[in-house]
């Protein structure tokens, strides 16, 4: 187990990281004071190895890459080996081991973006900047890269320019952004000419729309400020937990674990040092509800965390904010600061002696797997974001070996509202086993993509009616690790007992190619597998290759059996939730769209494989040998 640091390891110590604005050319040499600057960065984070991700992000931001020399220096400063530093640096997509441009443009490559004009936007950037995707310009000013879903599916196609988000990219819009950047404008200026003068909240909403299309009773309707916290402050731990348990609240991040039980386990631990972590690493393609909560209900999120802290007896908390949401960071810091000033964070909260709690923000760096709670904790500890072996569970031994409650953004919001309005109020909404409301992020082929707060238990058809998805032929409920359903399943209900979801609903019309969608999502999982265990690292590649066979018309019925067999092996033997759900795009389409597979399957004749093409197999050799086959080319006319 990780050696525990003495006393206090500075979770709260959070110096401000200056962000590159792209105006000044980056300092790219390893000499010329770079060494000193890196030492300075390490020192700013107390030379703490647990802050490795922050150190590397700061170095990346300043120098646009993590050079081998930088790794040596960081290793020396933090008392790690160089290979340990490289292990972290090479794990995260937003950390680079070759120089990136002063302005790094990451274009979202989600399937929804692909269906809404991604190719046009990419072509415009490439032409205007004169570089191809995946490359950096010779003068070091620009890099162009693809990145998986950045949580903007309701306003796709979208891109991140350094930390700034641009949405609804058309060919013209992309072209004018690229041209302005080339002329020396900063990304912030392009969002708003008076960007610096805007309030942090205005900055967060300057280029990203909330698209709240249906406000429900719990989260997006009127919410009295801190009413839940005020009530919780006069309750004992046991009473808070009992209330949350009675409400039936289940985790909103996907797994659906009973929140009250999670808090109870952590509260029962004797360890005086406990943590409350907010999982804002919303990475499931098609999900963007936490983005909206962090923008519009940041106070409620933090209120919920504070209540959780009181319930389990934690003094410190952390919001793990995905790197793609860096544009929300200033807004969240601002909300935290205001709450500290109002006595809602810090010591003696609401003048209750001993009610101490504060929160810092940990930035992620572009790794889907860090949404898994074990991986999230590893990431916060300064390690590669790999899941941990369970048990022990984080509620027993989590961050640095201490009991840690990790809940989703939405879960904390619900908890705060439950403390205000009572368990009965929440429990009466939704269905048995799925109480309350849920945020759904709906995108894809529908007229009204956006956020809908609805009670559990609505049918897929109801939701499609609301979102204007009348020509939907397939709906992906719960993102790629969820279920793909067809028209005959639109009466199924959105709840934990039927179609469970963390909120992502992606609508596909009949014009879309199901196998293309499946292959895309398999590619996503191949890209995001942390590589720790073989079934997930290798198995997903084989699944993707087999789907390619179907798309090329080279599959036969034995391949369907192979897909099922391999999928069940991956599910059974993977170490964490990624591998346990990554075959779902295949399994749910085999189940719900069997005709798609049978239509692309060839039947063998006389024992000969229909998928084997001798002419294709020998054409290369025929060219090299400059002669025909004496077996298979009977005469020259063939």
């Amino acid at each position: 187990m990780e050696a525990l640091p003495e006393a206090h390891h500075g979770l709260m110590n959070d110096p401000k990281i200056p962000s590159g604005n792209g105006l000044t050319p980056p300092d790219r040499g390893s000499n010329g004071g770079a060494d000193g600057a890196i030492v300075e960065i390490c020192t700013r984070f107390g030379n703490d190895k647990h802050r490795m991700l922050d150190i590397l992000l700061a170095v990346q931001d300043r120098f646009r890459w993590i050079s081998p020399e930088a790794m040596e220096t960081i290793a020396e400063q933090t008392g790690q080996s160089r290979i340990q530093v490289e292990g972290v640096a090479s794990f995260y997509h937003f950390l680079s081991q070759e120089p990136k441009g002063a302005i790094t443009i990451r274009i979202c490559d989600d399937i929804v973006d692909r269906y809404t004009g991604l190719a046009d936007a990419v072509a415009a950037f490439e032409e205007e900047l004169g570089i191809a995707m995946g490359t950096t310009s010779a003068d070091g000013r620009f890099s162009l890269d693809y990145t998986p879903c950045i949580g903007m599916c309701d306003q796709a196609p979208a891109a991140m320019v350094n930390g700034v988000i641009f949405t609804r990219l058309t060919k013209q819009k992309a072209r004018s952004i690229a041209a302005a950047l080339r002329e020396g404008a900063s990304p912030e200026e392009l969002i708003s000419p008076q960007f610096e003068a805007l309030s942090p909240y205005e900055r967060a909403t300057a280029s990203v729309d909330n698209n709240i299309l249906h406000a429900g009773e719990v989260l997006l309707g009127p919410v009295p400020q801190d009413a839940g916290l005020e009530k919780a402050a006069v309750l004992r731990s046991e009473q808070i937990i009992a209330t949350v348990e009675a409400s039936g609240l289940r985790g909103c991040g996907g797994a659906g674990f009973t929140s009250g039980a999670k808090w109870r386990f952590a509260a029962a631990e004797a360890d005086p040092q406990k943590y409350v972590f907010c999982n804002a690493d919303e990475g499931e393609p098609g999900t963007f509800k936490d983005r909206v909560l962090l923008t519009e209900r940041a106070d409620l999120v933090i209120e919920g965390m504070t209540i959780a802290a009181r319930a389990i007896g934690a003094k410190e908390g952390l919001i793990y904010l995905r790197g793609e949401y860096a544009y929300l960071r200033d807004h969240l810091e601002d909300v935290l600061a205001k709450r500290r000033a109002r006595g809602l964070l810090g010591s003696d909260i609401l003048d209750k002696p001993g009610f101490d709690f504060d929160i810092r923000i940990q930035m992620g760096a572009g790794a889907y797997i860090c949404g898994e709670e074990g991986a999230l904790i590893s990431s916060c500890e300064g390690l590669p974001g790999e899941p941990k072996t369970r048990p022990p569970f984080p509620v027993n031994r989590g961050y640095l070996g201490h009991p840690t409650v990790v809940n989703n953004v939405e879960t904390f919001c619900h908890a705060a509202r439950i403390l205000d309005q009572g368990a009965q109020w929440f429990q009466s909404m939704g269905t048995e086993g799925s109480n309350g409301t849920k945020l759904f992020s709906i995108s894809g082929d529908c007229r009204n993509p956006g956020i809908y707060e609805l009670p559990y238990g609505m049918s897929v058809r109801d939701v499609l009616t609301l979102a204007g998805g009348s020509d939907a032929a397939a709906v992906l409920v719960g993102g790629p690790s969820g279920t793909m359903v067809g028209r005959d399943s639109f009466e199924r209900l959105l709840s934990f007992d039927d179609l469970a979801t963390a909120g992502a609903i992606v609508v596909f019309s009949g014009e879309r190619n199901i196998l293309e969608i499946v292959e895309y999502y398999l590619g996503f999982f191949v890209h995001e597998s942390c590589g720790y265990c073989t079934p997930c690292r290798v198995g997903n590649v084989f699944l993707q290759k087999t789907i390619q066979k179907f798309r090329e018309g080279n599959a036969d019925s034995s391949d369907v059996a192979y897909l099922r067999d391999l999928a069940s092996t991956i599910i059974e033997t993977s170490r964490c939730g990624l591998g346990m759900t990554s075959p779902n795009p295949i399994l749910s389409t085999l189940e719900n769209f069997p005709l798609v597979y049978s239509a692309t399957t060839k039947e063998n004749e006389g024992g000969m494989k229909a998928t084997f093409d001798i002419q294709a197999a020998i054409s290369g050799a025929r060219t090299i040998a400059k002669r025909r086959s004496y077996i298979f080319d009977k005469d020259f006319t063939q």
Partner: protein
Amino acid sequence: MSEEPRKARIATASLAGCFGCHMAILDIDERLIDLMKLVDVDRSPLTDIKRFTRRCDIGIIEGGCCNEENVHVLQEFRRNCDVLVAIGQCAIMGGLPAMRNAIMHSDDPLRECLEEAYITGAYLRNTTHNVPNDPALPLILDKVYSCAEVVEIDHQIPGCAPEGDVIYDTLIKLLAGKFRGFERETIRFD
């Protein structure tokens, strides 16, 4: 009954293999005498019969397909045998010859493979500096295929090479119509 029951007919072939699996067939030792009481060997390197004289009950295939002749032979076996058995790792997975399938990040992997093998390889002594191209040589395939990628295979006997005991037991059970796959203990490696 006066007439003896018809003896089963067996055929064998070695495609892109090393003949090790055929050696393993001989490893069944003196039990060959028992086996020969039950079967006639038709087309096979063991009999040097080059063409099927009649339809066979069991075809045994060693090696995968690396050239067009391998494909041709394998297809003939499928046409002429009721049951086709792939024996050894090359027939089942492509085996060692399939290492060339790993040349995949090249614009022309086949040419690269041939040049490495005959012209540019570090330890070559090929005074002609040519890739062999006699008209009698079968054309090489774009990659090495396992037998199951070319024709339907009924049974597989894994191993490199499988033990003589395993081959013998499998054949005896097949002939008796009692083969139901392998117990895990028989085919594990450790």
